[in-house]
């Protein structure tokens, strides 16, 4: 941590950055911190399991425009940056990407592409709790799962915090913001709440890094990130692409192999 702070102070003092996006202590947990001077660096805190995923700010022009930005990344944020770069959403050396590895090693990536070899070593895995819930759901009958999710979605108020917290949900006009056609009813309702989640995770299929920021953001505690996780599992099983590793082959749904194997097209 001290190394991280020292590095940020150095970057501020040398004028290499004007803004460091990191975390500081919030009301109960960490909160995003927009640090603007060497003297404020002291407030910075860090852990690799912090939420939200700070990479979400990198595509917000309003925030990063006219700034020289350093971003303090969790492993999840690193993965997101690698994907964002691959989708041409951030430039080659636009940001100083700073990371503190789980064994407290300070890492600075000169370009998003340099992240690849590092995250290649670390698959994205769900938490124990999440794994348990997924197993519980898998063991249920289809009817039971429907009832379980219906109860969850009944809490949904369509605040779109799941979308807002996701670094990969950067579209300037989301499918739910269009009314011609209006695919998904914009008001809260059992079907549209589910349709919205299906759309969200399908549009993230093969792009999601499994950070869980969507579920963490939900004010109603709906574990929407489990849907993403299920897709990650599904992709690994079907296409052999491990969750959260560098996106070498292009997004899963933008690519194909002639010998993709399924067992249900008859």
């Amino acid at each position, binding site marked *: 941590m001290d190394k991280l702070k020292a590095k940020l102070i150095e970057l501020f003092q040398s004028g290499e950055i004007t803004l460091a996006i990191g975390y500081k202590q919030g009301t109960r947990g960490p909160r995003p911190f927009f640090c603007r001077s060497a003297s404020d660096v002291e407030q910075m805190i860090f852990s690799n399991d912090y939420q939200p995923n700070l990479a979400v700010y990198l595509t917000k022009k309003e925030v990063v425009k006219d700034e020289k930005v350093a971003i303090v990344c969790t492993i999840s944020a690193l993965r997101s940056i690698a994907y964002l770069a691959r989708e041409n959403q951030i430039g080659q050396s636009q940001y100083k990407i700073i990371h503190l590895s789980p064994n407290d090693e300070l890492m600075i990536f000169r370009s998003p592409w340099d992240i690849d070899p590092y995250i290649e070593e670390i698959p994205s895995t769900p938490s124990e709790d999440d794994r348990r819930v997924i197993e519980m759901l898998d063991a249920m009958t289809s009817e039971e799962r429907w009832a379980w999710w219906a109860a969850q979605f009944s809490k949904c108020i369509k*605040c779109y915090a799941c979308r807002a917290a996701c670094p990969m949900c950067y579209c300037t006009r989301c499918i739910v913001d269009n009314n011609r056609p209006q695919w998904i009813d914009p008001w*809260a309702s059992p079907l549209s709440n589910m349709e919205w989640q299906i759309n969200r995770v399908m549009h993230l299929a093969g792009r999601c890094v499994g950070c869980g920021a969507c579920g963490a953001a939900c*004010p109603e505690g709906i574990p929407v990130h489990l849907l993403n996780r299920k897709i990650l599992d599904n992709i690994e099983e079907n296409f052999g692409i491990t969750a959260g590793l560098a996106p070498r082959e292009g997004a899963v749904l933008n690519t194909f192999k002639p010998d993709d194997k399924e067992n249900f097209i008859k």
Partner: protein
Amino acid sequence: MDTLYIKKSDIPSWWNAIKAAHDHVVAPVRKDKVVEFARVESYEQVATDYIQTTRSAKEVLFPRTERLFSYKKNGRDIEVQDFDPESVPSQVLWHVRPCDAASLFPLDAVFNWDYKDVMYNTRRERTAIVATSCATADEYCFCTSVGGGAGDTRGSDILLTYTADGAIAEVMTEKGKSLVALSQNLFTEYTAGDKDKYVADVPRVFDVEKLKEKMHGMFDSQVWKEQSERCLGCGACAYVCPTCSCFDIQENPKGSCGERLRCWDSCGFAQFTLHTSGHNPRSTQASRWRQRLMHKFSYIPQRQDSLGCTGCGRCSRACPVDMNIKEHLSSIDKIQ
């Protein structure tokens, strides 16, 4: 106003009498990690182990999604089916917090501002409110800073304050009296006058009168950008807020039939004010955050003699990036 007392052991039978006399009782219920208002069938379902529900009680009067009217097309003709006030059930809102009861003032004001909103008013008329004082509060609560309090009776038909073995019932309105009348024999006079010792102490963090005055001239301040920098632009704060009443009107066509609906909306969304031409009067998150606070603390007070905040702290608890409104307001208060 009558101050009465009911023994703890008698509350369930009073509750049952209330339940029997109304179509629904709506009360806080635990659902996994959160506690929410929902229709309950038995007294045991009512949750007790919580500080605050995630959503406010406003949805009882101003539902998430609501039909304004429905229609049927017959050739080139259209037949409309108006909202039917008779379809609105009678209900008791049980165990809302004083901060939720207080939210009725800004809601009443906006829904009756010159034009009367018949859906809201019908629901309001058919809903009786039994609030409960807060015995505990958390660091997000700031009701006392915005003119309320953990034992505030404003907006309640009855306010219950739980003692060790019963509850003090402050009966504020005729509606409240008729609820008591359902089990009149269970109530006795209460004269101890010691309600305050059962009510949480919520420290006051700013003077709202000074704050209102100050914010009046702060439209061009830098503070909005500074505070909103981490805002992600979701609608969580507005949707959990007991006073946020902005809404959207939407169409739900199904072939030749359909309905027009009203649903919650939030000034935090970029689309809220976007014109078809592409012009957006509030194109930045900073301007939208400013609108949220100015509307609550400057515009509503100026126009409707009310305040758009009851200090419940829900927005702060719901925010994915910990935008703590109490902290933000205090820091505005401290600006010289």
